[in-house]
């Protein structure tokens, strides 16, 4: 009998202490944010959110899922705010009335990644579409393999956009021969691992690529194409429609949007470095125009990125910066 009493006491103690940690958090405001896994994995949010949380005595609850799922969660009112990077889907989302105040605020880059030997010769491609063309041609002859995210993520959408520039719509892409076009249905990290294993090409966001390189997991993969404006990965904030979902702390959500597009917020994004480089480039409209008014060097870069330029130009400009 004593055994049972002791065991119940122990279980109760553990349960209560665990609950205490979880349930009795200090009184504060909460902002529920849906974002993508690649955003969370870059570490940016761990870097910038604490500043916002301190200033506003709030907690930002970050839920990282695929782009498609994030938008779905916004539709359902399960989150208060979205930080995503799927321009086409975002536009539709706002058009359908699910969200408001869609605001661009930063971008990073997609890169085409492939094996050292680069059998498709994507290095010599004029741009990303040309690179894809070379992969397609070599793929159908059995020379190379391409792994696709195939999961409605931002990266997947970007991939499809490039294919569509070559004249292939979504259905046609999905029907590419599986001998060379592998539809993985997995996250970016796993897809990179698969490419390492198979010596295949893929489209990746730069942050995930760099993190995998740093971890030493993908020694034989290299960036073979980058900087093409078609490879720009634009991030936006969308406020979930608080008229429909009255439980949302709309003020806090607006405060977040204001903060991240403010000078301080944008500078903070710019200062985030990892793998020896700045991962994200802030480009909220107010920030860009403010900079161009001030005439800083950075404004030129920002203005350049807002238009279409070649990889060469960007390299030239970064030399100017250096």
């Amino acid at each position, binding site marked *: 009998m004593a*055994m049972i009493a002791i065991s119940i006491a122990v279980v109760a103690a*553990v349960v209560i*202490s665990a609950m205490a940690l979880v349930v009795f958090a200090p009184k504060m405001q909460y902002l529920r944010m849906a974002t993508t896994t690649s955003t969370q*994995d870059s570490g940016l949010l761990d870097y910038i959110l604490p500043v916002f949380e301190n200033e506003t005595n709030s907690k930002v609850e970050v*839920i*990282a899922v695929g782009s498609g799922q994030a938008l779905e969660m916004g539709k359902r009112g*399960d989150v208060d705010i979205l930080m995503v990077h799927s321009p086409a889907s975002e536009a539709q989302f706002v058009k359908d009335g699910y969200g408001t105040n869609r605001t661009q605020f930063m971008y990073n880059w997609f890169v085409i990644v492939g094996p050292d030997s680069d059998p498709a010769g994507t290095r010599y491609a004029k741009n990303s579409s040309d690179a894809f063309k070379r992969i397609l041609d070599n793929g159908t002859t059995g020379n190379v393999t391409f792994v696709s995210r195939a999961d409605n993520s931002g990266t997947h959408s970007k991939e499809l956009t490039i294919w569509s520039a070559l004249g292939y719509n979504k259905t046609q892409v999905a029907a590419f021969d599986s001998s060379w076009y592998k539809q993985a249905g997995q996250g970016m*990290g796993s897809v990179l691992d698969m490419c390492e294993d198979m010596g295949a090409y893929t489209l990746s966001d730069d942050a995930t690529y760099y993190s995998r390189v740093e971890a030493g*997991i993908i020694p034989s993969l290299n960036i073979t194409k980058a900087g093409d404006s078609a490879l720009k990965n634009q991030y936006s904030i969308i406020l979930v429609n608080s008229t429909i979902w009255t439980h949302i702390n709309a003020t806090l959500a607006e405060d977040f949007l204001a903060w991240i597009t403010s000078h301080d917020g944008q500078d903070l994004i710019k200062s985030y470095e990892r793998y020896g480089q700045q991962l994200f480039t802030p480009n909220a409209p107010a920030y860009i125009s403010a900079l161009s008014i001030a005439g800083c060097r950075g404004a030129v870069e920002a203005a350049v990125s807002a238009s279409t330029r070649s990889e060469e130009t960007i390299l030239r400009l970064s030399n100017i910066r250096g």
Partner: protein
Amino acid sequence: MVLGIEYDVVQVTLLSLYVAGAATILGCLIGIPLGSLIGLKEFGGKGTLKTITYTMYGFPPVVSGLFIYYLFSRSGPFGSLGVLFTPTAMILAETLLVIPLAAGITITEVSEVDRSIKDTIRALGASRRISNLTVMREAWVGLIMAAMIGFGRCIAEVGAAYMVGGNIQGETRTLTTAIMLETRMGKFDYAIGLGLVLIAVALAVFFFMRLLQEKEHL
């Protein structure tokens, strides 16, 4: 692996224990009496009910997660309770997985209790209700087994936990969802480290439950 880097491993472990423990207890509180009822009572359709229960062993956890998500989404019937993305939602999703396990194992265990024991208990003058309770106590070892298996299922659960919990740092991040995160980020060593913590915790729990099983006198 150093404790405390990136987030509190202790907190994550305690949350895992809390969620898995609560779901196991809830699931057994429902599943064991249910299984006992099905196992000990004679009624039409008993065979069908048993088959359904055993089939539910294979119920995909992700589907349980989806179901709870739909129920507690703001767009869903119970959205206003604000349960989604809290440990409560995770507990509910995992409880659904434990119930068929606890019920099914209990059905088997109480059925296996010797016919002569059941007769003896009745012959000694126990009423229907007390008789069922005594049979359950005779099947004590097996019922603890049901709880152990239920706990095992919960502590290892990741799909449903991620879906209805959201893996929110400091709130709904468990050992398993943390492992998934670290793996996704390529930090395989850290992930394995967390995995070892999970196994150690599970070991402690199972050791304790084995002690309960071994108790000689009831």
